[in-house]
């Protein structure tokens, strides 16, 4: 019988779910923050053969020097297979070498588009936003060219919105058929969205977000209640397995003991 943890935080739930979704032996382009914690957990559990790629240029490192504080950190290079720079990492992505892009965003719409640029009216107030966010970084590139992406977003109504204030990282665009192909994009776009409330996918037809599983303690209703648009619900919706004690131990003792990205 699996030994589940009973005491875990939202971040820890997200990280655990993310790690479990990463297939072994795949090439994963990890963004900064929780994705880095997730990929490290995956390497220590179900994905010892995972090949992490970081945008600053490291390919296939073993993350054994403690959690990197940045995707450009020297800690992303330990025992790597190949190291160059940003152009190289993104060209690998453009060429098709990256199976999964694992990224976070500040604001998401039903089609998996992300905003990490600004809060305010666009384009009118582009030069004078209400809140200026850091900008695309590499997420805007991963979302275009990784074979598919897994997204992490904080589950709050003001972050799950029908219409973004700014479209930074492209998901399924307006959901229309072949929209990404027509725009010249190559990757298939977002496949999963992970939050502390639910695991979501996208409807094959409409490309709108769909609950696949609820996180422990949540219901379809409680998830919908914190979402600013109507979620579809998968016919086989299920409850996601909680983190195991071992997963939590690894996060707390080994991966992020000082709670840099994963708060308790």
């Amino acid at each position, binding site marked *: 019988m699996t030994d589940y943890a009973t005491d875990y935080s939202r971040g820890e739930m997200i990280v655990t779910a993310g790690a479990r979704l990463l297939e072994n032996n795949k090439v994963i382009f990890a963004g900064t923050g929780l994705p880095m914690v997730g990929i490290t957990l995956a390497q220590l559990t179900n994905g010892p053969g995972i090949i992490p790629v970081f945008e600053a240029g*490291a390919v296939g490192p073993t993350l054994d020097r403690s959690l990197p504080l940045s995707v450009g950190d020297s800690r992303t290079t330990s025992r790597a297979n190949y190291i160059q720079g*940003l152009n190289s990492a993104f060209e690998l992505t453009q060429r098709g070498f990256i199976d999964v892009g694992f990224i976070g965003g500040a604001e998401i719409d039903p089609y998996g588009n992300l905003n990490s640029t600004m809060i305010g009216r666009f384009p009118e107030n582009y030069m004078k*936003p209400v809140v200026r966010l850091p900008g695309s970084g590499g997420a805007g590139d991963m979302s275009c060219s990784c074979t598919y992406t897994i997204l992490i977003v904080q589950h709050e109504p003001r972050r799950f919105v029908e219409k973004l204030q700014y479209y930074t990282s492209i998901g399924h665009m307006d959901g229309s058929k072949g929209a990404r192909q027509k725009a010249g994009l190559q990757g298939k776009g977002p496949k999963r969205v992970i939050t502390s409330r639910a695991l979501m996918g996208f409807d094959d037809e409409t490309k709108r977000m769909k609950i696949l599983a609820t996180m422990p303690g949540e219901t379809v209703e409680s998830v919908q209640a914190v979402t600013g648009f109507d979620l579809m619900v998968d016919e086989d919706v299920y409850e996601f397995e909680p983190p195991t004690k071992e997963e939590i131990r690894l996060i707390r003792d080994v991966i992020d003991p000082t709670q840099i990205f994963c708060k308790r």
Partner: protein
Amino acid sequence: MLWTGLSPDEARTYIEQKDKSKRDKRMTMTEAVQTFVKDGDNIGVGGFVNSRQPVAIAHEIIRQGRKDLILSFQSAGLVPDYLLGAMALEPEHLSVQRMEFAYCGHEYAGTSSMLRYMTENEKIFIEDWTNFSMSARFKAGSMGIPFIPIRSGQGGDIEKCNRSQTTQCPFSGRTILLIPACHPDVGILHVQEADLYGNCRIKGQTFTCPEIAMASKNVIVTCDKLIDHDIIAMDPTRTSIPFFAVDAVVELPLGSYPTVCHDIHYYDKIHLEHFKGLTDAFRKGDRDSLAAYYDAYIYGVADTDQFIDKIPYNQLKYARQIESRNLELQTHLTPPTA
């Protein structure tokens, strides 16, 4: 079409006419910045977020003061914050008119309060790109082509905010984005090792430093270590930037402190977070604390050695010790506290 920095034709002509001889390019920091950084310059900022940022060069630019600068980079943290902070305190002494970039912030340590202050108060012009498109703009510049096609950064709002152009690939017929080269007036870079001619060796990721060097009109390099030219000649495949792309070599140990410098030192989190906290406070109305920092750590010192002298030794020592070692070898070290 507005070219910020140099147009491709201007950039080509400048390099053609440049003295490309192998000569001693050592300079003091003061001299390098006096010679190569002018009012209105487009500055290509090396490093990535808070990794190998050219902090010492930024400090000297702040000390000397420059007006109407343009900053070009993919992702950066401390250097734009330092420059924007100087502008926030004394716009008559230093000002930034425009930034072309993909990300300005501090990853784990949060967003940039200086970017927020400047944009939310409409004090600078910004042009958004993605990390790849900005990197590829430097690459196109380094290759000597006026533009390069890429398959990202399209389909959303970013392309509406910048000078990219959507077109059809004449071979495949598919939609693709064309982005213009970036040729900064001056590239500012910190590297681990350089010889006196300017041949640079970068350890770890190169970020976009070689591309910035080859794309820029002039290049200032600070290095942790000046090495014999013979070491370069022993294995030239390790040279990341060839001498003729570099104009000033400033030997400056810890020139990217408190950001991380691969194999030399890790972040000084305490100092980074201290400065970050002051910028956060500034945005909320506390001007004096940030001004005191500038007075103490930048205006009040003559150079980087004096800046480093103000860092408690145990912070410096810890940053050096935890770099390039695995978790087990870090466990016996006690992190310093602020």
